[in-house]
């Protein structure tokens, strides 16, 4: 069976990474085309990609291309999904599909009508450690789940320009944590309470966002959850997870580039956590694309789809409402009222 022909739409930092992963690490995929208004043609040529376009239609109109990877800016995701679905192409789309639940539902409807697959880029679900945790937890190793904890802290605060168009900490950053809680627990978030603060950079506050947050939540299975977020650790990308239950607990720690420990009069010193998500989730980024391509080739359902994006965005909307209105918010309430994206 020949490799699945893929086109990549949008070549920013993530787009480059996905393209390189497809070319180097997913043998069942053949990247035929990349399209981006600001395309680095030399980069694409070096990767041996035959079609290098600035116009997305070049990808969408190519009958040979079976699947597309959408990593264009978030605001364009839904339109691109609709067009790709209309062109009968399977779709891998970066998170969040959209900030508005209704837009995600529209995207879902478009792929359902077209009969194509839509996988969403919740990369953590493909991380070997978190998969192992999922197996342990869902296999009953911790018994009934009582508490889940996610620590999610970036190494360095993003530029304020990014903050302004990111949708805010809850939509851009904590969205992974909402998905991780759902993934690990196999349950839905019923209610949450979010408290945010501007402690890293006052400019983030002026842009209407927060840079530090604590979110507590209740799940449908009765368990409680805690998420803590910070935009800046200064010691690397801090990603820790814990699931605690009636029979015990499982914990996933940070990973490091090396395992060397040096001891001296000044202390016992080991590596800091990986500096960015690219290094921390290197295997996950490859595995999610390999899984997507496998789903396409074997006609299997995707492991993380629009329904998951919808649930995570609803949680993000509820968290923002909770923070702004200073009260616990039911997710059922957020279904009716959540708008997404920018807030003033």
């Amino acid at each position: 069976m020949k490799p699945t022909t893929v086109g990549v739409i949008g070549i920013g930092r993530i787009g480059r990474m996905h393209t390189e992963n497809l070319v180097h690490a997913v043998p069942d995929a053949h990247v035929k085309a990349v399209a981006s208004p600001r395309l680095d043609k030399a980069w694409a040529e070096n990767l041996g990609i035959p079609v290098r376009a600035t116009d997305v239609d070049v990808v969408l109109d190519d009958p040979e291309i079976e699947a597309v990877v959408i990593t264009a800016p978030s605001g364009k995701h839904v339109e691109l999904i609709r067009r790709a679905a209309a062109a009968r192409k399977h779709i891998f789309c970066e998170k969040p599909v959209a900030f508005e639940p209704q837009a995600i539902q529209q995207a879902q409807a478009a792929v359902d009508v077209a009969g194509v697959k839509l996988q969403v880029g919740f990369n953590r679900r493909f991380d070997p450690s978190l998969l192992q945790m999922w197996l342990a937890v869902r296999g009953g190793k911790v018994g009934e789940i009582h508490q889940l904890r996610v620590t999610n802290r970036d190494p360095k605060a993003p530029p304020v320009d990014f903050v302004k168009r990111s949708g805010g900490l809850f939509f851009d950053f904590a969205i992974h944590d909402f998905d991780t809680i759902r993934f690990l627990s196999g349950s839905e978030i019923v209610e949450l309470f979010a408290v945010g603060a501007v402690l890293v950079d006052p400019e983030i506050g002026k842009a209407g966002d927060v840079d530090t947050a604590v979110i507590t939540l209740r799940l449908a299975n009765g368990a409680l959850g805690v998420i803590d977020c910070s935009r800046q650790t200064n010691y690397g990308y801090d990603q820790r997870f814990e699931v605690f239950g009636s029979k015990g607990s499982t914990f996933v720690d940070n990973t490091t580039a090396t395992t060397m420990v040096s001891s001296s009069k000044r202390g016992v010193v080991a590596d800091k956590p990986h500096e960015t998500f690219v290094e921390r989730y290197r295997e996950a980024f490859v595995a999610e694309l390999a899984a997507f391509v496998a789903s396409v080739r074997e006609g299997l359902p995707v492991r993380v789809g629009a329904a998951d994006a919808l649930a995570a965005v609803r949680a993000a909307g509820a968290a923002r409402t909770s923070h702004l209105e200073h009260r616990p918010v039911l997710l059922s309430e957020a279904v009716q009222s959540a708008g997404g994206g920018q807030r003033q």
Partner: protein
Amino acid sequence: MRPITAGILGAGRIGKIHANNVMAMPGVRLKAIADPFADFKEWPGPAIATSKNPEDVLKDPEIEAVLVCSPTPSHADFTEAAARAGKHVFCEKPIAVDAERVRATLETVKRSGVKLQEGFNRRFDPTFARVRRAVADGEVGDVHLVRITARDPAAPPIEYVKSSGGMFADMTIHDFDMVRFLSGSEVEEVHAYGAVLVDPAIGVAGDIDTAVISMRLSNGALAIIENSRQAVFGYDQRIEVFGSKGGIEAFNETPARTVLRSRAGVRHENPLYFFLERYQRSFVIELEAFFASIRGDREPPAGGNDGLMALLVVLAAKQSLVENRPVRVEKLASAAPKKTR
């Protein structure tokens, strides 16, 4: 070192621990222990006077310091009686579960001019004290987050649950004190989610056994506490303080420091079983600090006001749980009428 003569009220579990620690402590003479329910047959031995009557300790002019280790409902009465008798007081937490009663007691102590230390032993745990020092020395920079995981190894008997004042008053009060101690800041607002997941009987008794609590502190930082009445692998006591320069974390302590590698995996030791094991040293150090503050005529390191502030957070957390909304701690404090004279 000037010797100090001490007496103890209450010879239950914690009273015995304190008594044994004081007996082994240089510069302190334990003269008498009173407990109406103890038989004192096997313990503490002939060197220590024993009595069923607390007055025998409270009225003894030789006794300079009294350790109140009786059941919680008698803490305030004994603390006031000892203070009126001119004795310095070490009282187990909480002084009372009613803020007005605590305020009245603190007032009596103040008028009596004696010292009052409250049994927030975790402040004196060498590991947690090191975390506090790191924060105070600026090693983590400005504090952004305080995170505490506190889980007991086994749920208490239901009779205990009924008389405990609830999980927040009985258990989480230590964590609230740690949040204040580690951050050097006050809890301004608290929100609590609670659940009954360990033992339905705890729910029937009107309490919870699992909680996640978020807080906003007056210095702007945020804090989280995770509680459970039952971690089957042992007493789970971890803290983390994260700030502008980095974070510091304290892990569980274990009976030994081994790792067993085999086909079955890499096996680390379980945590020390419960608070008597885990906080053994802190119980000694807190009393050393108490007697040192008497000798040096200094304010004790964990005073009555710390107990009151922790209790106010407990009350706010309880209210939050009932009303499912964030509750401001200081409003609760000012809403309570000042005692009129």
